[in-house]
């Protein structure tokens, strides 16, 4: 039996309560896996990976010129989220997005939260993601963050935390959809017997979210996805989403501002674009408004946007909410704007620009995780307990040199899921990124992308750092397992 030797150990395991004792929602899955030989399992794993490769769900490896493509390593053992957990998470995510959206409206307009002293003014003005050209901006229907991804983790005791917010261009949803497609052919019987919430309506929901903000009065607005191009590591996703929604996929060179509108070059002349789901960063959108050296952007785009002749998703300026220092103030935002207590807690966060916190951080570098406030992808990060004295020394210098740019958090012991490695099951640490759409209502796609750290003992799940992916199964409410 495959799982006989699997020991969840002193960790929170998403599938097992203890050795040989699966969680109630995982019983069927574990039985099914135990009924297969290890050879069969490994064959299915291989078949699943080949299917993903064939679909072209690949990203480019920049470092070599051979045009090598890899799929994100995919593990066929899913992560299961119980109905009760999901009900709570969904509520908490909606609350968080609601508050962050109000925060974005506020800081680019009246700045009440600063005037009331809830967030110090210099925290905002020193944030890289805070864009002065966006001051006074009123996006259509007051929505800034149409598409967000919020990273969640679970500690040793099973407590969920929000680890970070991604309000610029969160990627990964295409893996969720493609992984599910592959998993259905890997374990069809399990899908038959369990009530797992489907994820397939995401493209439809995304299209509605985008159409919701189209300039009014247009019978058939044109929606387009803006990609940096096929050499971008997330190109597969851009093209996949455009295809699934049946909308145009455009690059900067396809677009031009003419007659006061954003237009694309077609074989029959210029054609208006009304809603742009842009997958390039704020800085590169419009060289006239932001970085003058941007080759990707479209000169004059911001002017069209401000005149209400174009909707952008997400609105420019949302990047300020990704700042890890501003993250630390989200509980206060929730209280300030909604008068509620935050449902899903933040990880306790030390702000290095505050003298008291900095002192604590420097004294406890061996216990803490230090992160640069504006980096993503697992870069600019120190995992204290796993670092060498030299690395800690290096970070201590960086912190004192630029305290505003660093935060620190206790090292959480991320929950684990059994993962097939070299013909045996090993517990690997995971996080979870659910995707949230802000349209007429706030919609949370069931589950999200479970990233798994495939290096033994590693806590870093980012794909650029040896991470992989798993399917995430949310159990339907009231299902009889």
């Amino acid at each position: 039996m495959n799982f006989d030797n699997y020991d969840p150990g002193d960790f929170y395991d998403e599938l097992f309560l203890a050795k040989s004792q699966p969680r109630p929602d995982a019983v069927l899955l574990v039985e099914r896996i135990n009924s297969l030989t290890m050879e069969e399992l490994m064959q299915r794993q291989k078949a699943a990976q080949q299917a993903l490769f064939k679909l072209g769900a690949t990203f480019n490896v920049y470092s070599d010129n051979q045009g090598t493509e890899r799929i994100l390593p995919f593990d066929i053992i899913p992560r299961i989220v119980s109905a009760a957990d999901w009900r709570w998470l969904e509520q908490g995510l909606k609350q968080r997005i609601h508050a962050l959206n109000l925060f974005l409206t506020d800081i680019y307009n009246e700045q009440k939260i600063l005037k009331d002293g809830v967030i110090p003014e210099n925290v905002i003005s020193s944030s890289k993601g805070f864009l002065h050209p966006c001051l006074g901006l009123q996006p259509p229907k007051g929505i800034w963050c149409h598409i967000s991804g919020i990273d969640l983790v679970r500690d040793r005791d099973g407590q969920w935390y929000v680890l970070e917010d991604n309000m610029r261009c969160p990627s990964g949803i295409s893996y969720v959809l493609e992984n599910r497609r592959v998993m259905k052919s890997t374990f069809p019987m399990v899908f038959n017997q369990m009530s797992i919430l489907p994820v397939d309506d995401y493209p439809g929901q995304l299209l509605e979210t985008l159409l919701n903000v189209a300039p009014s009065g247009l019978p058939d607005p044109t929606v387009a996805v803006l990609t940096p191009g096929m050499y971008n590591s997330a190109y597969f996703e851009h093209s996949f989403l455009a295809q699934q929604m049946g909308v145009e996929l455009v690059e900067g060179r396809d677009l031009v501002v003419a007659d006061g509108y954003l237009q694309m070059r077609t074989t029959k002349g210029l054609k208006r674009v009304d809603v742009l789901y842009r997958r390039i960063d704020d800085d590169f959108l419009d060289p006239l408004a932001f970085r003058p050296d941007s080759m990707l952007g479209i000169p004059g785009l911001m002017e069209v946007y401000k005149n209400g002749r174009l909707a952008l998703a997400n609105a420019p300026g949302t990047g300020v909410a990704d700042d890890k220092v501003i993250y630390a103030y989200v509980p206060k935002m929730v209280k300030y704007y909604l008068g509620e207590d935050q449902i899903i807690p933040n990880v306790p966060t030390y702000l290095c620009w505050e003298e008291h916190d900095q002192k604590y951080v420097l004294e406890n570098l061996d216990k803490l995780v230090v992160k640069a406030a504006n980096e993503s992808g697992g870069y600019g990060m120190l995992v204290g307990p796993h670092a060498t004295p030299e690395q800690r020394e290096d970070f201590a210098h960086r912190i004192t040199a630029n305290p505003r740019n660093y935060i620190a958090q206790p090292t959480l012991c991320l929950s684990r899921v059994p993962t097939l490695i070299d013909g045996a099951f090993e517990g690997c640490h995971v996080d979870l990124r659910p995707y949230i759409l802000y349209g007429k209502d706030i919609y949370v796609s069931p589950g999200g992308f479970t990233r798994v750290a495939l290096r033994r003992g590693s806590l870093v799940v980012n794909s650029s750092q040896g991470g992989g992916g798993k399917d995430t199964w949310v159990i339907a409410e009231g299902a009889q397992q």
Partner: protein
Amino acid sequence: MLSRVADSIYWLNRYVERAENVARFVDVNINLLLDSPIAAQQWEPLVYTTGDQHFFQQHYGEPTADNVIQFLTFDRTYPNSIISCVTAARENARSVREIISSEMWEQINDFYFMVKDASQGPHLSALSDFFAKVKLASHLFAGVMDSTMSHNEGWHFGHIGRMLERADKTARILDVKYFILLPSVKDVGTPLDELQWIALLKSTSGYEMYRKCQHRITPQGIASFLILDREFPRSIQSCLIHAERSLHRITGGTPGIWRNPVERALGKLRAELDYITIEEINQQGLHEFLDQLEISLNDIGTKMFELFFALEPLR
């Protein structure tokens, strides 16, 4: 549709067709040599077919079998080798994945990995099988495109690309073979000669179809078949008829009336072949005629670019 997208679908199809034709050239030559005395083995004509003899001389020197096969098949630095064509086709396909069908993408992806794997395998002995696979992969792609993608604007751009490429390659192979096979009138009619002519037909998959309508193998009959036949799908005229039909589906134009430079150039060339006879072609000289035809085809390609694409293509 987006100009960039139309351009990519057009080139996707051109590159697939180009890879197929290179495979045809090489395959037929290998087969032909099996029937020839060692001394008469020629690989040089293949280099001439490509029109890139300068590149070849620079990088390879002697036109030995190994050199020519490597050059035409697996040389990534030569832009018209099979592997370069298939790579470029795939890059173009990747940039329009959301427009073409998933089946088309999967087919071109399989095609690429088949060629890539073969390029790492052992040489020559396994190759005949390989060229058959390249032809089949190209046919599969065309078939999959035909039956899974709506015959919309994008499909017609792709179809034009394939037809123009095919017309060009048929013209080239006929030109080179004629030049090699008939350096002087006294060579006509020897037994080796007939084998060579049959090989020429086979490289266009035209041998059987030719036999059905012309029976006897004559140089003039073959030239007429490959240039003027209206029904054989690899003849130049047939390609032009199909390309023009697709062009009018895109522009909404009517045959016989032109409203833009592409309609005019393509319509003019097609009409010329409608009314010319093989005797007239021989009078001006086959080589001169084909040379002019290739220039006209290039010109149509340039005008396509100016009218519809006019954006940097992905190559």
